[in-house]
Each structure stands twice: as structure tokens, then as C-alpha cells.
């Protein structure tokens, strides 16, 4: 009996040590946090850095990093004692659960003052459910209508929402076609069945109904579709005068390439995302020229600012990088004004201020102002058209940098 006990003892002690070690591991981050100096403001950045949307996540991170470095080089946040902007970057992966967990971690471990992210609407929605309950401001450039339609107080959307962007995509197309003497009667809509795709398609559909234009093809397809030929065949048979393929990168490349290879030359109007990044041009080559797209913002609205991006990273400042840059700039402006970085004061300043100067100049209206729901009321979507290596703003006329080209 006692022999057995003695034999049993060593592993038990081991187990206790194991528990002790695990406890230590759990406690360590808390202790390390205590020891850190307080002359920096932590800002959380949650982006999809792996998976299907990784490219957009990386672009966004570049934009945020650029602004953070600019602010720190200029002496940090002055009203907070020249506090440095410290970015806490994490991968949202592509699952909302992971994004929410990351948000929780940033709030409790890193004590972030606010969170920026997360490009994809489903990730942003999941994060917002966490930030709203913890009263942490979340600044986003995701389009989904839901983001600012749930009555949340701590979410801020710097771009127009998806239904507005979808409607503008349609109205802009009609306007450009009309200017070229084409009366648009029949169009096709192709969309990926994600949060982003369905809500943009919904906006397009409504706009078409309102304009009395017939939608002759209205097809959803799964993200990462392997063969678009059936879609293109449907398109050919439909008699559509223009096509709206709403998609992220790879799918849009496939759709346009197969269309052009099969000799379908009518205009294609993209819905931002994959249509307005350098990879679109490098993936399609000459087929990219003249492709139209809606975009919530474009680099050419203030080239002096966006050139700092292209100089550092070697490609034009894509809209997600630009809007994330604006998110961070607005947040820092709010901190300057509040003189504090606690969530309640930040939220108050974010709601009640018209932000001007800095990166907000590149947005339409040259400023950013949030309404009670947190939506930037000054943001207007733009129509851009590929010219050489970059998309150029062509509509609405007051923002246009070049006249649109329409080949019926």
C-alpha cells in the first residue's frame, strides 16, 4: 500500500509542476503588460492576412503602417504627451469566430484604445459584436449595410455602404453609357455568394428596377469558382449590353479573361475589390484596359498624399489601403482633439466632429463626418476606369480626372 503510494508520487508531483508551468504561462502576458511603459497608444489592427482575402489584408496593413510611421515621425500624438502610435496587428484568418477572439484578445491583453479592420464584412460584423459590448471604437472600410444598421454606437464606417455603392455602380454606368450615346436596356449581374457579393448585387438589382433596365442574367456563384465558362455562355445567350461581375480577385480575372477570349467585348463594370488592385492589371494584361469599376475611393483624388504610398511600396495606393489610412488618421485626430484615449471620449469626439486635413483630403468631400449610426455621410462612391497601370476616376464629373470611354 505504502509502496504503491511512493510509486505513485513522482508522476503526481510532475503533474503539479505541469499545472504550475501552465499557470505561469497563462499569467505571463499579464505580468509583462504591467511592466510596459505607458507612453504609447495601442491600436488594434485585425485583417485577413491568410486565406482568400490575404492580398487585401496586406494592402490594408501597408496603408495603416504608412500612416502610423508618418504620425510617429512627426512626433506622435501631441495632446497625449507625444505618445507613439503602437500598432497591434493580428490575422483575422477567414472565420468570424477567430476574428472575434482576436478582438477580445486585443481589448483585454493589449488594452487597445480602438480597433481598425477587418476588410471582409463578415469578419467586421463579428468583431463589432465584441467591440460594441466592450465600448471600444471600431473603424472600418467594410461596405456591408448591416454594419451601421444595427444601432451600434461604437462602430464607424468611413465608406458608403454596399447598397449605395451598388446603386452608384449602376447609375454611373447608365450615365457613362448615355454620354456615349448608348441606351442601356439589358444588363447581366454575376456575384459571388459572400456577404459582400450578395449585398452589392442587391443594390444593383434595386437600381436596375428603378431605372427600368431589365436584368437578363442574375447569377450567384461560389467564391473561388473553378470554371466560369457556363456563366459566360449564359451571358452570351442573354443579349446583355453590359455585365456587372461582383467579385474578389481571382474570380474577376477569370470572368473577364474568358469573356474577352470568347469575343464578348461589351463593357464589364466591376464592384471594387479585385477590380481595382495592381494584380488585376498584371493578371489580365491588355484585357484590363478600359474595364470600369465602382470604387469607394480612389488614389487620384489627392495624388500628393497617395504618392507617399506608391513610393514606399511600389504600387499605386489601392482603395482599401487608402481607406484604412483614413481610418487611422481620423482616429488619431480624434485622440488629439479629446486629449485622451479612453473609449468613451473617443466615441464622443468621433461622433461629433467634422474631420478635415491629413488623409481625409483623399476622400470625396475632402473630409470625414460620422452620423449617429457611425456612417461617414460625406463618402461618395466613384467610377474608375483602367488606363495603363492605374484606375482613373471618370465619374461623377466633379471628381473625374479623365473622361470615360464606353465601347458598346
Amino acid at each position, binding site marked *: *500500500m505504502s509502496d504503491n503510494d511512493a510509486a*505513485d508520487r513522482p*508522476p503526481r508531483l*510532475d*503533474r503539479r509542476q*505541469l*499545472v504550475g508551468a501552465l*499557470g505561469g504561462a*497563462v*499569467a505571463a502576458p*499579464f505580468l509583462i503588460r504591467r511592466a510596459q511603459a505607458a507612453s504609447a497608444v495601442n491600436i488594434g489592427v485585425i485583417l485577413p*492576412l*491568410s*486565406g482568400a482575402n*490575404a492580398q487585401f*489584408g*496586406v494592402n490594408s496593413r501597408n496603408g495603416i503602417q504608412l500612416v502610423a510611421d508618418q504620425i510617429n515621425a512627426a512626433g506622435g500624438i501631441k495632446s497625449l504627451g507625444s505618445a507613439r502610435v503602437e500598432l*497591434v*496587428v*493580428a*490575422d483575422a*484568418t*477567414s*472565420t*468570424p*469566430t*477567430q476574428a*472575434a*477572439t*482576436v478582438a*477580445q*484578445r486585443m*481589448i*483585454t*491583453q493589449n488594452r487597445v484604445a480602438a480597433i481598425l479592420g477587418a476588410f471582409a*464584412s*463578415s469578419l467586421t*460584423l*463579428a468583431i*463589432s*459584436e*465584441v467591440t460594441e*459590448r*466592450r465600448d471600444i471604437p471600431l473603424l472600418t472600410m467594410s461596405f*456591408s449595410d*448591416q454594419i451601421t444598421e*444595427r444601432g451600434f454606437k461604437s462602430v464607424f464606417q468611413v465608406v458608403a455602404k454596399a447598397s449605395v455603392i451598388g446603386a452608384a455602380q449602376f447609375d454611373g454606368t447608365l450615365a457613362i453609357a448615355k454620354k456615349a450615346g448608348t441606351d442601356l436596356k439589358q444588363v447581366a449581374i454575376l456575384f459571388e*455568394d*459572400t*456577404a459582400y*457579393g*450578395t*449585398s452589392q448585387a442587391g443594390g444593383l438589382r434595386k437600381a436596375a428596377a428603378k431605372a427600368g433596365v431589365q436584368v437578363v442574367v442574375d447569377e*450567384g456563384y*461560389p467564391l473561388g469558382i473553378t470554371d466560369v465558362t457556363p456563366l459566360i455562355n449564359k451571358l452570351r445567350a442573354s443579349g446583355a449590353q453590359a455585365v456587372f461581375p461582383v467579385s474578389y480577385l481571382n474570380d474577376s480575372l477569370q470572368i473577364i479573361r474568358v469573356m474577352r477570349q470568347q469575343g464578348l467585348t461589351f463593357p464589364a463594370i466591376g464592384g471594387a475589390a479585385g477590380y481595382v488592385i495592381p494584380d488585376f492589371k498584371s493578371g489580365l494584361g491588355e484585357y484590363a484596359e478600359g474595364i470600369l469599376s465602382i470604387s469607394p475611393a480612389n488614389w487620384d483624388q489627392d495624388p500628393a498624399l497617395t504618392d507617399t504610398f506608391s513610393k514606399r511600396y511600389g504600387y499605386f495606393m489601392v482603395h482599401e489601403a487608402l481607406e484604412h489610412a483614413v481610418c487611422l488618421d481620423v482616429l488619431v485626430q480624434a485622440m488629439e482633439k479629446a486629449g485622451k484615449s479612453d473609449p468613451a471620449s473617443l466615441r464622443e469626439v468621433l461622433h461629433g466632429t467634422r474631420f478635415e486635413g491629413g488623409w481625409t483630403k483623399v476622400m470625396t468631400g475632402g473630409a470625414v463626418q460620422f452620423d449617429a449610426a457611425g456612417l461617414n455621410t460625406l463618402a461618395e462612391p466613384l467610377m474608375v476606369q483602367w488606363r495603363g497601370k492605374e484606375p482613373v476616376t471618370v465619374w461623377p464629373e466633379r471628381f473625374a480626372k479623365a473622361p470615360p470611354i464606353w465601347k458598346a
Partner: protein
Amino acid sequence: MPVAAIAAALIVPLGLDGDGYAIRVIALVFLFAALGQSWNIVGGLANQISLGHAAFFGIGAYTSTRLLIDFGLSPWFGMLAGGVLGGAAAALISLPTMRLRGHYFALATLAFGEVMRVVANAWTGLTGGPVGISVPYSAPGLWMLSFKGTLPFYYLNLTALVGVTAVFVGIRRSAFGYRLQAVREDANAAEVVGVDTARIKIQAAVISGALTAMLGTLYAQMNFFFDPDAVFGAAPISVRIALIAIVGGIGTAAGPILGAILIVSLEEIANVLLSGQVAGLSNLVYGLILIAVIMIQPHGLVALGPVFRRPWRVPAVDAAK
């Protein structure tokens, strides 16, 4: 040992920030351990490797959330309704597939889970479609399963884990459990000695499906937001649940718990340490470690040696004395 483990789990939160990240991660460990455990009833005892458990999980999440949104019904009733629907779905999918064995069964269930995901994406009126669905935020309280912080879910998930584990152990020790294990060892021999193999497999699937669906409700309430890919997805749910049970030790009570501790915390650690660096590095490292674990110990973590195995044996040895 189980009692000591539960006691430790009850005490741990006292030392941590109640709304904190560590609590959330441990709560997720409990939830996924419970999911692994309910998978274990079919996958472990009868060796019917299901890769479609997300189907039941999603049914539970959507049922309770839909009832909550449309009728303001307490998620507790939603959980029961989800359990019934999950069990019914398990029976439905079992009827044609239970005679399949090995890879064929795994493939059939994988397809079922994917079908549910596609349906949920398309059926926008019911599920909100790919845009996802937000769980309405009710006044905090146990009745509406709604809390501002994470700590209540820590205890709820722990309770769920203890409950599902008790069901698993109860089944394993019952005549029903022995029949299931007979099917696992040799289905033909079991038939010969008079076990209605198809029938008991369906019964086990129904119990497993119902429990998985009920855990889906808990997940929905804890996460506030989900979309079809999050609850019906093969990688985030179906394969993960099976992986947890397999890595931990298939067919054992401790297996899914050890598996969930390893897999959930590994994902977190990889994300914390590596995701801010090179894009995608955290997933790569996570995958490599999992491959290493399976290669070093194909029987799961429970087989790693006396350190882990003994605690579960000690009571039996004492009783024998």
C-alpha cells in the same frame, strides 16, 4: 481525477480577468471538447468517422437564433428545439449512410455538411445568407443566455462539457455502448451475435447529432454573430471536431478534452505569436505541429504515457484494493 479537474476548472477563473481573453480561449476549449466528445459517441465508440457534424452544429445555431429573433423565445427552448431538429437530421442522414463503412461513410457525411452550408448560403430568408446573422442582444441574464462578459459562458461551456462527457461515459459503460464497440471491432461478428448494427448506429448518431446541435446554440449565444461558413464549414467545424477527438485519442473520455486543449490553444498561440509577421505563417506552423503530433503518436495524446493515462485508472486500482 475527473473531480479534481472539474474543481480546478471551477477555480481557475478567479485568478483571471473575467471578461478576458484567457477566459474566452478556455471557454472555447470547453466548447470544442464537448463537441469532440459528442462526436466521439459515433466516431469513437462505433468508429463511424463523421466529417459532417457541422450540419447538426449549424442546425442548432440557426434554430435557436431564428426562434429568438422571430418569437423572442428563450435560447433554452431554442436549444431544445435545435436538439430535436439536430437529432432528426442525424436520423435522416443516418438511414442511407449507416450501411456505408470507412471512407465511404466519411465522404457521405462530408458531403452532407457541405450541402447544408450551400443551402444556408442560398436560403437568405431563413439564415440571412452569406451576410450572416446577428444574435439580438437581450438584457443580460441566464434566462435569455445573454451576457456582457465571457465568464458565464466559461461556466456554461464547462457544464456542457461535463454533461456530454457524462453521457459519453454512461453510454460506453452501458449495454448499448458495448454493442457499439462490438460494431467497431467487427460489424459482421456483431451481426452474427444478434446486434442490429444499423439500428444502434442510428441511435448513436441521433444522440450525437442532438448534443452537437445543442452546443451550436451555446456557440451562437457566445459569439453573437455567425454566417453559414462559420457554423456549417468543413474546416472550422466538421474536420476540427473530428481532429480534436482523433488527435486527443479516439474513443476515450479524456481524448477530446486533451485534443481540444492542444488544438484550440495551438491555434491561438500560433495566431498570437506569428500572425502579425509574415502573412499565413501562423497557419503553416499550426499545420506542421499537427502533422508532427499525428506522426509521433497516431493513437492520440491519451496514449502518450502514464502521465496522462494513469489519472483515469487510479480509481479502478484503488477500488480493487
